């Protein structure tokens, strides 16, 4: 959790990500998904709570040396490939930076690794000496991925890695990410608002709303049996391409109103101001996470009763 003034960006979130999984964190603006991602990799410090990585507590007090080694294995690919690459540095410098900071190898060793990485992300070798503005959006994102992989991480947080890319380019990046996961044995935390992408790419999904985790489920189960009223509404709003697709999601539920401000979150269940199943209890009691089926957990008073 993180407290800044009176904003609870992430409020009492507990989740497990298993090795080799692609865990998707889904939510809209103000849901806290990006903040959670950044807390996990250490860009923000948690106000309360623990983060265990491969069984070790990385959120507590550690010596700088210990932290550096632990954090090396967790990396992040950022959302906007244009602003996350320094426009005044060449690709080779951008990708070697992490290795230089961590004193990974000799200069030649690092250069060789950069060549390997560019090959891994399917970029031509002569891109090494180019500047970011000479690359397309999709190519820049590949550089971001190469940079994230330069320290041989085990865990990569992908923060909306394809949001700024066209659909046909997005598909190519997803194919690349899948291949890399298999070849390098990576575990992904995939932060996105794109539910279609979640369906094709993630093995497990966590749905966030206003700092709270409202539902966690294996992907197929989430889409076939969404439990939380927010999840149901979210899925129902996906615009479909064919009549066959219409059957694969809940029929349209119109969510009225806007997302409340995080500085003024509703008491009890944070979703109650927009929920069509709201009861008196929802105003006063916080819904606890309850298991409704294998691996499928929901925080909702109405859902848990229906089972």
């Amino acid at each position, binding site marked *: 959790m993180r407290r800044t003034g009176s904003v609870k960006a992430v409020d009492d979130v507990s989740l497990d990500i298993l090795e080799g999984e692609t865990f998707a964190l889904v939510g809209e*603006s103000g849901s806290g998904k990006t903040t959670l991602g950044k807390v996990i990799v250490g860009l923000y410090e948690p106000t309360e709570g623990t983060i265990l990585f491969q069984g070790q507590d990385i959120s507590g007090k550690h010596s700088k040396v210990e932290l550096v080694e632990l954090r090396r294995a967790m990396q992040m690919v950022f959302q906007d490939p244009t602003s996350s690459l320094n426009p005044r540095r060449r690709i080779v410098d951008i990708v070697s930076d992490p290795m230089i900071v961590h004193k990974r190898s000799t200069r030649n060793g690092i250069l060789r690794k950069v060549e390997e990485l560019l090959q891994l992300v399917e970029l031509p070798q002569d891109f090494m000496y180019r500047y970011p503005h000479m690359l397309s959006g*999709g190519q820049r994102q590949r550089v971001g991925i190469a940079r994230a992989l330069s320290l041989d991480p085990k865990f990569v947080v992908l923060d909306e890695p394809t949001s700024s890319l*066209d659909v*046909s380019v997005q598909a190519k990046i997803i194919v690349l990410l899948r291949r890399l996961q298999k070849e390098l044995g990576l575990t992904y935390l995939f932060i996105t*608002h794109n539910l279609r992408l979640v*369906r094709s790419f993630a093995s497990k999904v966590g749905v966030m709303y206003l700092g709270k985790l409202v539902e966690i489920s294996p992907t197929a189960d989430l*889409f076939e049996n969404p439990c939380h009223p927010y999840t149901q509404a979210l899925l129902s709003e996906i615009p479909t391409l064919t009549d066959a697709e219409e059957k694969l999601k809940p029929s349209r539920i*119109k*969510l009225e109103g806007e997302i409340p401000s995080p500085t003024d979150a509703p008491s009890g269940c944070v979703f109650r101001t927009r929920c069509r199943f709201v009861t008196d209890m929802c105003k006063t009691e916080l819904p606890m996470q309850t298991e409704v089926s294998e691996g499928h957990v929901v925080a909702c008073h109405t859902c848990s009763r229906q089972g």
Partner: protein
Amino acid sequence: MSTPIVEIKDLHLSFATWEGTARVVDGVDLLVGQHESVSVVGETGCGKSVIAKAVAGVLPVPPAKIEKGEIYLKGKDILSMSRKEADRVRRKEVSMVFQDSMNALNPVYTVGDHLVDSLLWKGDGTFRFTTYVAKKLNKAAVEKAWKDSVQMLESVRVPSPERIMKRYPIELSGGMRQRVLIAMALLGKPSLLIADEPTTSVDVSIEAQILDLISDMIKREDVAVMYITHDLAVAKQVSNRVYVLYAGTVAEKADSNVLFRNPAHPYTVGLMASIPKLDGTIGEGIREMLPDYTAPPSGCRFHPRCDKMVSVCSQDRPKLVEVEPGHWVACHLAHGA
């Protein structure tokens, strides 16, 4: 058959760049009829925004240059008129809603200022200080403009419109700002509303609300819509006819339900395959990249990326052929119905 609201004939548009002349729009025919909602779909750089801006008259000329073609607004050829006359027609008939609502609104003016000024000026760019003062002092006109603005905010479903009138853009959420832009666009009672990717920077649930709103507005305000987007699913939801643009050419055009049931152009097929589906499958994308407009491919502009390419594709530009009623494809492999 009533006069179409906007008709574009054989438009050729280029940009002067350091690397040469970029021939962006290369022979586009487009039509939006009365009461129609038409989507222009394509990926980044296909020229869709440029076409919309050419119609609205907000293209920077130079470096842009209209090499050839005609644009008719309600039957009037605006490219053959003087700039002043063309703008007069545009002011009356066309309104545009832009993608980035924060940039489209002036941060030091309230919502009310934006809306009331829209009504008082109706897009007249000839600014004179005396006119400004005169208009502002005309209490009756300002009051009427205020009332009309509040009413329009109500129709675009802005809650507590009277209060919102006094707010600054930064105090509003993205969805709310987008509604204000739509309200501003509709105040002038245009015949054509051009929406340039208005829901790209908005959350999914707000996007759904905005799309519903636009569909409602079409029925209520008797306005035709040209909707620019890269999202095929959004195009399907909000319009009854779709143009698929590739590299400044029309690859395919069809009624919405027909296009999605039976996409014919290899580009459209590749695009649809790339969309992650609700059954968990996703395509592999389309190989290569958009062409360099300063040295575009000969013949069909898509041929270097097409798996079905044959020799004629690199020589001749394919013409639009009707493959079934209401469905036209520009591809040498397509056969007429």
